[in-house]
């Protein structure tokens, strides 16, 4: 269970994010500029919120009223961005191995290999990132996010730059992995099709506002009808 209740400010932009996400996929759906990505950054510990608190499985990640702060390392979350952000100077396997936390060099490489297999990317282990297609690179980025054995997954429009066929396949993969690992997962998107297909729970975002009451399947269906009407 991930509980978020924070505010943040960047320049003129004010954000208020308030929601709880249970196991399964919670889709954060809303227009770009709403603050969805920023919300993920606050959860991962890349940025500090102005006020409020974030808890994961009852453990406080940050609480500005008590000054509690867990470093990104202590938080153990996995994150995938819109770009794969694989390091060009490392092979695919080395990219994933960097995210494996413990063990000797060989252990980490073996473990990285297993994660690559899990996302069906094992055959590209020795390639360099520039030799991968966009969809392949995002699979590797997903393996990297999983390799740290995260307690939650944060996916920030991970498939935006991919074509529809590849997107659909990767959505199935994500759904499959989340179900198997029972991970609380936040999936940011502004694609209504993607939102309805993936969401166990749906959170709406409007500019400066993320969350409120999470919808259920009915809510999603209503949303889909609304969106298909226009």
């Amino acid at each position: 269970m991930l509980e978020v209740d924070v505010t943040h400010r960047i320049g003129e932009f004010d954000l208020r994010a308030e929601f709880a996400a249970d196991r399964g996929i919670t889709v954060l759906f809303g227009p770009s500029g709403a603050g969805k990505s920023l919300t993920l950054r606050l959860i991962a510990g890349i940025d500090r919120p102005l006020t409020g608190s974030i808890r994961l499985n009852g453990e406080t990640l940050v609480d500005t009223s008590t000054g509690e702060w867990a470093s990104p390392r202590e938080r153990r979350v996995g994150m995938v961005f819109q770009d794969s952000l694989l390091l060009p100077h490392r092979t695919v396997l080395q990219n994933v191995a960097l995210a494996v936390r413990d063990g000797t060099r060989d252990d980490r490489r073996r473990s990285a290999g297993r994660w690559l297999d899990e996302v069906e990317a094992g055959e590209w282990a020795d390639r360099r990132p520039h030799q991968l297609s966009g969809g392949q690179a995002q699979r590797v980025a997903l393996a990297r996010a999983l390799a740290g054995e995260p307690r939650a997954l944060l996916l920030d429009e991970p498939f935006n730059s991919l074509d529809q066929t590849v997107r659909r396949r990767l959505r199935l993969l994500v759904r499959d992995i989340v179900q198997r690992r029972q991970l609380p997962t936040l999936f940011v998107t502004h694609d209504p099709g993607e939102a309805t297909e993936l969401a166990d729970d749906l959170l709406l975002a409007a500019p400066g506002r993320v969350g409120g009451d999470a919808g259920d399947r009915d809510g999603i269906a209503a949303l889909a009808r609304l969106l298909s009407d226009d």
Partner: protein
Amino acid sequence: MWDPLWLTLRVTAAATLIVGVTGIGFGYLLARARFPGRALLDVLASAPIVMPPTVLGYYLLVVLGRRSPIGRAWEAVFGSPLVFTWQGAVVAASVASFPFCLRAARAAIESVDRRYEAVGQVMGLPGWRVAAQITLPLARRGLLAGVALGFARALGDFGTTVMVAGNIPGRTQTMPIAVYDAVQAFDYDRAGTLAFVLLGIAVTVLLLVRRLERSNS
């Protein structure tokens, strides 16, 4: 004839090493860290660029001379003064070329997409590993260019070196100074040879850097 060449290679190699390490280190701090005195460090570090080399050399002479605290400390430890030695020439060449490497390194590091660093943070890498395994490798071409610039500047230093280390044949007379000396003595053959070798070294190193950059891409 070849004394100045060996001396120059030794001084330049030492200066390039010093400037490479400090230039990249301070370049990283200026690009990524926020600390009090940052603006002052920024200005001071770049000051040698806008100072005439002889003025820079003069200040170094004041700071490192035999009566200065640093000069005395050096002499106490190593048994000989720092100024008017080849080590003094290394200091002179390093200080003169440091800002060039620093500025290139800083620009290279600033141009690294910070989201790569965020990925490293979220993975749980400590700050030094994010720097060593993500930021610096991503900036490596610019860093290499910075070190090459530092090398070139150190190789060609005249004014600062001559102030701090003097012009002692066989001991502190580097090639640029030897060229000047030869011309003063109307020995144009010697000046021409020295100048040509110096040019050859500079061009060779720049070609090597170019090749390294290519093989990296």
